[in-house]
């Protein structure tokens, strides 16, 4: 391959044009980078395009917007920049450009003085295949829905079993009615919102079933989407059989015990022609792993450092492809951090960048060859992002989620089993992503491992 054309050369290429992707692109652009957004759909906006319900933007825009309105605000911001937007474009691979100047192995080419690798992002669109070259890549591909197959619901395989997001697309974007009488499995936010949506479009919603003994969605969604519409929520109950030869005819629901195992004798047959599944989201990282990015098995997102850089130097990750967020606003503020760091990484080599904050940058972070700190979740904390910290003289915001609701628990940061920070007792819920800040004082004390744990405590 010859020298890439100048119009395919970028500082930062963002993969995914949803809220995270646009957020990262706008921030990188604000830092003076030449930026491209690659989006597989024909339009920017990502999944927000089909989320026509309100409730977006409270944190970021301080007003309540629908998904498309929220997306449009970001689209408008992108439009007035010279960010290159490539829609209808599917990235097929991210490769590192072969080092032409040297035959030496650059095992850790991000060490001081080494040239930063160039990434080649290959994409397919109706204009043909194009390869973009860039110093930084931001992964912002979002997530996909878990399917009926992944949770292995037994029974037949008729039409009428949809992931909630697909049904949402049919209803809200395609103007197509997916059924008449629905059962919803899973009390995640998409399931709750779709319960209301189906009801508003004249479908009957028999009920929402949740295998866990608690609801998985945000409280406000339970109130606004179920309670206000008289749709019952059945906890500790799951769908154990799908019935129907061609179109769904019924589902069998069964109560489960404390080990989530169906309790024989509690089966109930419910006639319905539609089953919507809201049973979890999976970060869509097939492209990332093919590029050599290591994943955290807990989040199924990339392993990242405090700058949201993955295990491949110059590739960053943010939004739902990193870990599943509850709110688009959170995904976007994470994206702004990724965009900033991607910009620093891209521009640091040949330009003197104006570093506006006292925060250390991805570039400066590698200056001191101190051992990285590995972060691990502990106790009720199901995961923690980031997975490693490469410098100790900056404040690091960490994010985590609890595995189950707990009334009274404390956050404890431990080093080699010794508690170096303990928070105040309070309640934690799996539906809410939590944040905590590690200070340089804590990091200086740390060895090579820190744990972030949530421990249940007695009511005091």
């Amino acid at each position, binding site marked *: 391959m010859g020298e890439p054309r100048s119009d395919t050369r970028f500082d930062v290429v963002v993969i995914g044009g949803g809220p995270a992707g646009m957020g990262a692109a706008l921030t990188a652009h604000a830092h003076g980078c030449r930026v491209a957004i690659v989006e597989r759909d024909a339009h920017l906006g990502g999944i927000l395009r089909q989320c026509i319900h309100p409730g977006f933007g409270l944190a970021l825009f301080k007003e309540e917007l629908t998904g498309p309105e929220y997306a*449009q605000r970001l689209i408008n911001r992108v439009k007035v920049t010279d960010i290159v937007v490539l829609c209808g474009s599917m990235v097929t691979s991210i490769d590192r450009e072969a080092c032409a100047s040297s035959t030496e192995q650059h095992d850790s080419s991000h060490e001081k003085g080494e040239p930063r690798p160039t990434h080649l992002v290959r994409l397919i669109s109706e204009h043909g295949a194009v390869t973009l070259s860039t110093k930084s890549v931001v992964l912002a591909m979002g997530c996909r829905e878990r399917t009926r197959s992944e949770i292995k619901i037994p029974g037949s395989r008729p039409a009428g079993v949809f992931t909630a997001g697909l049904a949402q697309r049919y209803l809200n974007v395609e103007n197509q009615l997916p059924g008449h009488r629905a059962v919803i499995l899973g009390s995640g936010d998409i399931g709750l919102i779709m319960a209301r949506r189906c009801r508003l479009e004249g479908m009957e919603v028999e009920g929402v079933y949740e295998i866990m003994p608690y609801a998985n969605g945000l409280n406000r969604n339970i109130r606004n989407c179920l309670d206000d519409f008289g749709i019952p929520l059945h906890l500790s109950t799951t769908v154990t059989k799908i019935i129907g030869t061609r179109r769904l005819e019924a589902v069998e629901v069964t109560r489960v015990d404390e080990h989530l195992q169906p309790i024989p004798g509690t089966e109930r047959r419910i006639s319905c022609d539609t089953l919507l599944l809201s049973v979890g989201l999976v970060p869509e990282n097939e492209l990332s792993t093919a590029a050599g990015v290591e994943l955290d098995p807990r989040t199924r997102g990339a392993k990242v450092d405090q700058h949201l850089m993955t295990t491949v130097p110059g590739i960053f990750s943010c939004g739902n492809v990193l870990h599943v967020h509850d709110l688009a606003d959170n995904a976007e503020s994470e994206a702004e951090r990724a965009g900033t760091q991607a910009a620093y990484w891209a521009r640091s080599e040949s330009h003197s960048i104006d570093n506006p904050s006292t925060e250390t940058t991805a570039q400066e972070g590698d200056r001191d060859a101190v051992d990285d700190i590995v972060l691990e979740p502990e106790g009720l904390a199901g995961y923690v992002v980031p997975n490693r910290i490469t410098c100790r003289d900056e404040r690091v915001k960490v994010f985590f989620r609890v595995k189950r609701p707990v009334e009274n628990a404390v956050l404890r940061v431990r080093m080699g089993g010794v508690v170096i920070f303990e928070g105040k007792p309070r309640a934690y819920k799996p539906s809410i992503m939590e944040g905590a800040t590690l200070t340089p004082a804590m990091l200086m004390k740390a060895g090579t491992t820190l744990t972030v744990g949530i421990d249940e405590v007695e009511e005091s």
Partner: protein
Amino acid sequence: MERYDIAIVGAGITGCAIARQLSRYDISLCVLESGNDVALGASKANGGLVHAGYDPAPHTVKATVNARGCELYGTWSRELGFTFHRTGSLVVGFTSDDRERVMALYRNGIANGVDKLPAAPGHAEELRFRIIDDAEDLHELEPRVSDRATCGLWCAATGVVDPFEVAIAAAENAAANGVGFLMGTRVRSIHQANRGFEIETDTGSVGARYLINAAGSGCADISRMAGGEELELDWRQGNIVILDKEPRPLLPLYPVPTPVSKGVIVAGTVHGNTVITATARLREPGDDDTYAQDVEELLEGARRLVPDLDTKRVVRPFAGGRAVIKGMNDFLICRSRLQPRLFQAAGMQSPGVASAPAVAERMERLLREAGIELRERASWNPIRKAPVDFDLAEPEEQDRLIADDPAWGRIFCRCETVPEAEVVAAIRRVPGARSVEGVKRRCRAGMGRCQGGFCQSRVVAVLARELGCNPSEVPLEDVGSPLLYGTVKGDARDSIAHREQGADFHG
């Protein structure tokens, strides 16, 4: 009434293979299929293994057609342009009892001529069928096989295919050579006339001088209607699991078989996924449900053979049944003794996929033996060109395709990288896809880990556009399996089929 020399009932892999075999000759031929696509029964619900033939008892019909079918797959795949990987396989034993049964399998295999079958590339001819007693040798063949394995049977002839691709390829080649495929045509009754049959179907009458019964689960009904043998069927049902892709597809690994089944087999598919196949239980006829206990049995069985297999990466569990003839652990491939114009290809079960080309060959011989003249047509073309698989094309070829038609650059299915143009081709081929699942089987849109979450609505729109119908008339699978029930608001013209580009979101 349309009249044919021969009517084949059933467009499963067996019926399609027979149709393709006979399409070579100067006779008029049709295939009657009750479903809206080929391979809707057992042919789509199996592990896609081309077993070599060391398993069936010697001198059974199965034993003969299995080994011969396995041999023919090389030629068939080249001519018909379907993917066939002759990978070889291992039967894996753990105990001294297993060692004895491996020995018995080996003797079976020698009796069935398995040692003379073609070998997987890169494997020595003289070692192509042998017992292995060295754990290291086992690991050399498949590094991921369990450390607890002590012995095995290596067979270099075993292969893997996509079973519906085989049926589709055979049907397309048959159709290109003039065979009529009458889809959605269920046989209601058969009148036995002097010079043949008058077949009443859902869509009208069809006349045929001879009838070939390849009706799968309907084989007993067809035999009875045509005046043939009374067949009593059992429904042997199997669950199967497909796991996500591995960096390197696994060698087909078999446990030591039980008297009724080959046991839980683990194999890399032609697309790099892992298939775990199959449980075997007698269930109510027509039952193609998956069962929690079966799926668990499969995952456990697979982990026993390949302990490091990540069985959480399930892409799809599915199931299907084989209509086996009661009390007869064999295929019924013969001229009917009661109705000399009826030919049976009934009781098809495992190894039905592996045997299909040889069953077709055998059917040709039976017809000749019955005095039916089969003269080769000069125009016969044995070659079927496979549709372009964009994902596998070289970059230059991809560029050329997109330059030719931008639909090649519109990627519908991100899991399997399937562009719109492949979906269109799947619908336009003959016989073509008429359902979302039919599209999936032809070009893999929706076959991947997200199971159509992203591409399904796009595939529905293209089906509606190509078939000139509303999205609500597009079935998931067979007729009567609608996905959608019309527009939510406004009139039907607002539907996705008629709204190519959608509103410009940039406004």
